[in-house]
């Protein structure tokens, strides 16, 4: 039995079985099933970790089954040091999502949990796919369950948000599809390793102009997903309206589809275009960091605030990736994981608050710390993690990213570090307004402390924050191999250099030997 296939298809099987749960027993049975199955999947994915050899930089658990004959599409999946963690992140967050939805989702619970499992399937698939077509398939498959999760179980403007989410992502991904097809027509294969080896051996060369366009097609799709300024506006809406579990999965894992794509596809495939565009992208990322932080600063809505912080945090990731330095890439990957854990936790607690007080407006809260000390403590730890306090996870990532940025261009580090200041501003200010101050009557009446179930959801996240903050080695070791490989590819696969004129990034492309 192939472990990788098991991990990938268990969620699908669980999804199908969840659909088969009879309607009469719906709510209890389906949530129990979702919990049991998602925990099972998590355990299975831990097996992946156990058998993964961190000393190797190559793809592992390579599974390649022919799928469609012409065009030549394979069901090719494998794991590398980066996707390994992203998969674990998905499988780790799913049971937490189930737990947090336990009482919150009463209506059409069966469908809810089924979609959650389907989403997990899609996410794992995205991180595993080694065939461009397959990657695109999973990429889009993720869209559907999330669309429903937001649209059916969301809040007030859920429909607007869901449609916006779908259309933004779709608009970007069609360009990627065009690029994928173009590459196929050039290489007659969708197999990513095969394309890479062609690039490495020089059998495949993307001429500068072509490379630039292809790169941009991929990049836009990923940048929307990340989301990179100025393509980010779907995110706050989606987050605000999504149910808690949806927000957690969206922020925790889905956004990483974009950054993973940038890392795993854009860089090795189009190294010289990526390098040529890197300054512009880094500037966008930095704008995103500062801009996201500033806008987060003035949000009156907790979820929206956290959503904008995601814009800022993901800006760090993109910045790290496009520094083309080892620390930058390591930090970017680490930051992906960190953001998954800490922002996931933020959304989780905001969701818990919402479940109690039925409001996301900061002004409706105040003095929660008095009535719910543990809740406040948990949120404080998460907040601190999110603003990058040393000994908690985000610090390690941010440090590496900024160090990478500083190596690449010191002024980037200067500007990006401003985001670190601002993160403290918005998070602490929100914390103050929500948890500190006089306890309002409604808060006193409606906001009890954490229940055991909620503890079960949040404690693993906090443990992870501390663990990742203190002993980053257990995570970074396999990551480093993969990032080093990618970095290597971006230096080796550069038979032609794409050069951008300084003034206009999209204008003509010079060919320089």
């Amino acid at each position, binding site marked *: 039995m192939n472990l990788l296939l098991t991990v990938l298809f268990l969620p699908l099987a669980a999804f199908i079985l969840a659909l088969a749960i009879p309607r009469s027993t719906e709510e209890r049975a389906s949530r129990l099933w979702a919990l049991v199955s998602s925990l099972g999947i998590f355990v299975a994915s831990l097996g992946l970790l156990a058998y993964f050899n961190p000393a190797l930089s190559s793809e592992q658990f390579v599974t390649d089954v022919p799928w469609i004959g012409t065009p030549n599409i394979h069901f090719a999946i494998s794991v590398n040091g980066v996707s390994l963690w992203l998969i674990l992140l998905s499988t780790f967050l799913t049971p937490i999502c189930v737990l947090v939805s336990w009482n919150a989702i009463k209506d059409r619970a069966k469908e809810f949990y089924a979609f959650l499992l389907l989403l997990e399937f899609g996410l794992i698939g995205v991180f595993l796919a080694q065939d461009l077509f397959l990657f695109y398939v999973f990429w889009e498959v993720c869209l559907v369950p999330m669309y429903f999760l937001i649209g059916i179980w969301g809040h007030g403007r859920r429909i607007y948000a869901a449609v916006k989410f779908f259309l933004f992502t779709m608009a970007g991904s069609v360009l990627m599809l065009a690029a994928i097809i173009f590459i196929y027509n050039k290489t007659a294969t969708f197999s990513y390793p095969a394309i890479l080896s062609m690039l490495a051996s020089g059998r495949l060369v993307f001429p500068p102009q072509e490379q630039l366009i292809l790169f941009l097609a991929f990049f836009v799709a990923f940048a929307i997903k990340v989301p990179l300024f*100025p393509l980010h506006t779907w995110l706050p809406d989606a987050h605000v309206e999504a149910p808690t579990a949806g927000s957690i999965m969206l922020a925790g894992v889905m956004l990483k589809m974009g950054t993973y794509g940038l890392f795993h596809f854009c860089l090795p495939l189009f190294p010289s275009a990526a390098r040529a565009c890197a300054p512009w992208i880094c500037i966008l990322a930095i704008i995103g960091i500062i801009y996201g932080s500033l806008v987060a*600063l003035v949000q009156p809505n907790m979820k929206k605030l956290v959503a904008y912080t995601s814009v800022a945090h993901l800006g760090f990731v993109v910045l790290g990736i496009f520094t083309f330095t080892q620390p930058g890439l*390591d930090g970017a990957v680490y930051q992906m994981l960190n953001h998954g854990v800490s922002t996931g936790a933020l959304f989780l607690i905001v969701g818990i608050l919402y479940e109690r007080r039925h409001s996301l407006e900061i002004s409706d809260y105040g003095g929660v*710390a008095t009535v719910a*000390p543990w809740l406040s403590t948990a949120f404080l730890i998460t907040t601190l993690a999110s603003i990058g306090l*040393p000994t908690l996870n985000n610090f390690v990532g941010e*440090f590496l990213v900024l*160090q990478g940025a*500083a190596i690449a261009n010191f002024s980037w580090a200067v500007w990006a570090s401003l985001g670190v200041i601002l993160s403290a501003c918005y998070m602490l200010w929100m914390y*103050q307004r929500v948890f500190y101050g006089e306890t309002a009557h409604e808060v006193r009446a409606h906001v009890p402390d954490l229940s055991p179930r909620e503890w079960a959801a949040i404690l693993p996240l906090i443990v992870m924050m501390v663990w990742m903050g203190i002993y980053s080695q257990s995570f970074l070791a396999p990551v480093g191999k993969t990032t080093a490989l990618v970095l290597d590819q971006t230096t080796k696969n550069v038979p032609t250099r794409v050069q951008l004129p300084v003034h206009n990034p999209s204008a003509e492309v010079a060919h320089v030997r």
Partner: protein
Amino acid sequence: MQLWLIPTFPLAGFLINGIFGRRFSKSLVNTVAIGSVLLSFLWVLKTVLALGDLNTAHLEHYFTWIQSGVPGGNHYINIGCDFAIDRLTVVMLFVVTGIGSLIHIYSIGYMAHEHGPNFGGYYRFFAYLNLFMFFMLVLVLGASYLLLFVGWEGVGLCSYLLIGFYFDKKFATTAGNKAFIVNRIGDFGFSLAMFYIFINFGSLDFDKVFHQAASAPEWVLTTIGLLLMVGACGKSAQIPLYIWLPDAMAGPTPVSALIHAATMVTAGVYMTARSWVIYTHAPGAMDVIAIVGIATAFMAATIGLAQTDIKKVFAYSTVSQLGYMFVGVGSGAFSAGVYHLMTHAFFKALLFLGAGSVIHALSGEQDMRNMGGLRKKIPITFWTMCCAWVAISGIPPFSGFFSKDAILLAAYQHSPAIYWIGVLTAGLTAFYVSRAMFMTFFGAYRGKAHPHESPAVMWVPLAILAALSLFGGMLFKIPEFLKASFPAEAEVENPMLMYISVAAGLSGIAIAYIMYLAKTGMADSLARTFSAPYRLIYNKYFVDEIYDATVVNPILGGSRIVLWKGIDSGVIDGLANGIASRCRDVGGILRLLQSGSIRSYASWILFGGVVLIVAMGLFGGLPR
């Protein structure tokens, strides 16, 4: 040597109290909290005794914290969790654990009545204090800039938590935020300095960095030094980032004593002293530090002249004294800076704890205008505070005298101007402390509460600190002790300078005596006569207001109106929605084709046909 145990004791205390403290009795909480700090103090003692002369640093490696890249490769980052101990560390360790222990003990009394509106304030307080101790010890022990930074940020966090300890009070939490954020601004510089250090030296470990630093170009070191200084300015409350410290007095008084006087705020000085190799090769950066230090010292001292809140006076005093320490390290007299750091820890902790005792006695009253004549009512507090008074005023042979004198001496060598301002500041210092003492303890009692003397757990630490304030300067000759750690400083004796500074201190006391005891109306009439400067210093030069108007409000307003509503909702979403509605408009126009009339449809078919024929026949196809 198990250095790791030193911070781990308080950490364990924090965890135990933090997690289970709610169910503990107060005495159990005390036992855990104070026990852990005392253990750590004892372990420091044992370690120091075991390690001997410590002329070279003793380093311990525990595990790799952050690693990126491969050894020997490009941009290889390897940050270990390494602790090191040398003489400078020893001084800091003793200050931190020693004074920390005293303040912990003192807090038993001070916080005894803490039940408050907050949940379990008591155990929370001690847990935070323990956490602070942990981070402070990490800061001191860390063998690399990044580990120092861990402690650096961590103490900032604890400062935040403790300033906002009374979290139902908005001003307290706001002050906490301010402290954290302003510190973050400083950390911005610190982290940039670290990045720059790494770029140039490939490591953040002290030994590696300093080993290479001597041979690095001066401009690199100047950049690093200045960036580090930004960090130090934040942590040690120097211009322009000092604004958080006065507000930090919103926290319980033991916190002010421990964190905002004795230990945390001196971290900047420690760090600067630690980086002496860099600074000695970057004289430009040193000059900047000295100038910032003296400006801060003077400015804060002037503000201190007019404050009426007893803790605010001491807070500005702290800022001012920290400025002195900066002058010290900025003048190249690192050991003098550290010396002053230690003596200041003694007397300023004492001043604060004494003030706390006063406040405790008056059930929370902090305004000196409502005090007076307390020397009879709370004599122990009075007498212990007198010890601090003479120490800070620079009266020989008490502790403040030695360290301040050492600094001024060094400053004079560096630049006489700094010296003279320093002397003036010394006079101001003596003046405002005396003023506070006179207003509090002399004259007639002007308040309503019934003062009562503090319990023994409070005054015993006061007494110990009083002893240290008086004799600490003589007992612990830091410059001697640290001679090996720092570059040789020119031994200069200049008794004249010493007399001048002592005279300045004495005259400060004398003027205060005249204004606040002999001729009581004089202060008010002076304030009226010089109302403009008085208002200026009374309102702290309106610095907070200026910052609000020039930085905070523009950022908030700009973010809300320009970025959020403008760019986000307006431009980007407007563009997206605009595209959507343009699409719909196009749809609406296209819909109009569908008039329902068969003949119009036929016209379209004809139209299409004719266009096709024309295109295909006449032109041989449309242009590609």
